[in-house]
């Protein structure tokens, strides 16, 4: 239905979002409002579809399951008492069932997956086949211990803890530097992807680019305070 206008809509919305880099403006507010409305509705559509499939394929087959589904619906409707001050206590019922179930499912394996297995993986043989690997194993063992001790706040970091905290800080700075480098790659990739989308259809890129930037510059020129130029850095800088 919208295929003919597809590239134009894509370019319009991308440029509206990017116009925020000039300054806050109505083009950006239009795109932001559209995004908010459609994102919420998109999730609702998928959830409704999943519920309908659950009913049709699983829960409508036997009397027991129909009863269970009806009970789920009744308890599920209690979620909406979140918006009532007087009956807010009813909202807590499905919430507590959901939270309890989630905590039970997550914690029962977290003990192993994120705790015991990780500790076991730290206690590796310090002496390896090569000198470089031996050095790395010693460093990993020492660094993990230091980082764990860094987050131990029951005792003040004095004496030996002061040295482990220093080692931990340098370790974490090197680690966070790696995170920063990879974050730059991700953010730049996302931007490059959008520029490629714009350049895939040059007419829409050119026309909307000129229209949006031109309207922003014109608005600034027409409404600029006396004694300033349109390129004066804005307060948000």
């Amino acid at each position, binding site marked *: 239905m919208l295929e003919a206008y597809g590239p134009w809509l894509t370019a319009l919305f991308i440029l509206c979002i990017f116009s925020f*880099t000039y300054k806050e403006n109505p083009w950006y507010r239009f795109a932001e409002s559209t995004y908010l409305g459609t994102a919420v509705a998109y999730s609702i559509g*998928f959830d409704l579809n999943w519920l309908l499939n659950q009913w049709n394929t699983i829960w409508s087959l036997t009397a027991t399951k129909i009863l269970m589904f009806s009970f789920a619906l009744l308890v599920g409707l209690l979620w909406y008492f979140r918006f009532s001050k007087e009956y807010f206590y009813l909202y807590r019922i499905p919430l507590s069932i959901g939270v309890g179930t989630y905590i039970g499912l997550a914690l029962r*394996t977290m003990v192993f997956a994120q705790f015991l297995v990780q500790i076991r993986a730290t206690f590796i043989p310090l002496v390896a086949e090569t000198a470089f690997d031996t050095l790395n194993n010693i460093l990993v063992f020492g660094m993990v211990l230091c980082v764990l001790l860094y987050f131990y706040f029951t005792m003040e970091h004095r004496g030996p803890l002061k040295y482990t905290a220093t080692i931990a800080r340098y370790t974490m700075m090197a680690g966070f530097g790696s995170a920063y480098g990879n974050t730059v790659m991700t953010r730049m990739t996302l931007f490059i992807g959008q520029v490629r989308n714009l350049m895939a259809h040059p007419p829409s890129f050119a026309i909307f680019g000129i229209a949006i930037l031109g309207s922003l510059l014109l608005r600034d020129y027409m409404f600029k305070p006396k004694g300033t130029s349109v390129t004066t850095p804005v307060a948000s800088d």
Partner: protein
Amino acid sequence: MSERSGEKESIWEKIQWIDTRILYLLMWVVVIWPLISPINLPIGVGRESKEYYDYIKDIPAGSKVILSYDMSFSGLPELGPMSIATLHQLLGMDVKVYICAFWNQGSNIAADDIEALNPEVDYGKVYGVDYIHFGYNPRSEVGMTQFASDVYTAFPNDFINNRPLGTYEIMEGVQTAADFDVLISIESGTPGSSEWVRQWVQPYGIPFLVGALGVSVPGVAPYKNAGQIVAFIAGLRSAAEYELLAGRPAIALAQQDPLSTTHILVILFVIVGNLGYFFTRQERARRLG
């Protein structure tokens, strides 16, 4: 004149307080220029991409492989090339591919990938026999647990034809997580690798591969080191290397030149920003005497 000290601004102070929009304009230039006039720098293949490609290549014939699209549209520039290249490699092998999603946008992205690759024509595969798209489960980690204990309750119908899963030939002998051989997740965030490790890898010991955003690299490291993740690729660079290995050069490779120029620009920004900081600090100290 410096607004701060009343004295004439030095060049470093002017550089420090440059209009940010000029920085943004420079970003546009360094991205558009290599797209118009490619530099074509060579790229090598890194350790992680090779491990990921080799692991998939060595999956035995007849294996059942889950490919989970735990991603959103916002991650498409980095994850899109990974997901389509992974699906391309899997469809070129004698394995059964079970596609699912725990992010609603992921199910649409998976459908787009299937349409783009055209498995029936280009790979000789049949939907429902060689590959299937389960669709989306909205329950995150609880949904993954549900999937592990019973596929049919987690995903009642398939996404493409909206038919009950049990009506497809590919589902014979498939009931729980124990019936699958490999799990691959292409992911944007949560739910993602931590949840899969807790609900699938830890209880069932299933080999787990990850394709993730560059920002997720630090988080993947402890799982990879502990062997809970057997292979991973993260970021556009790994995606480009994997495209080369999988024999499907596409978007990720095309974006390597602007990746180089933007990275050089950011490094220059850091250097110039720091030089400006140090020199203005010296001048301020000199003024104060």
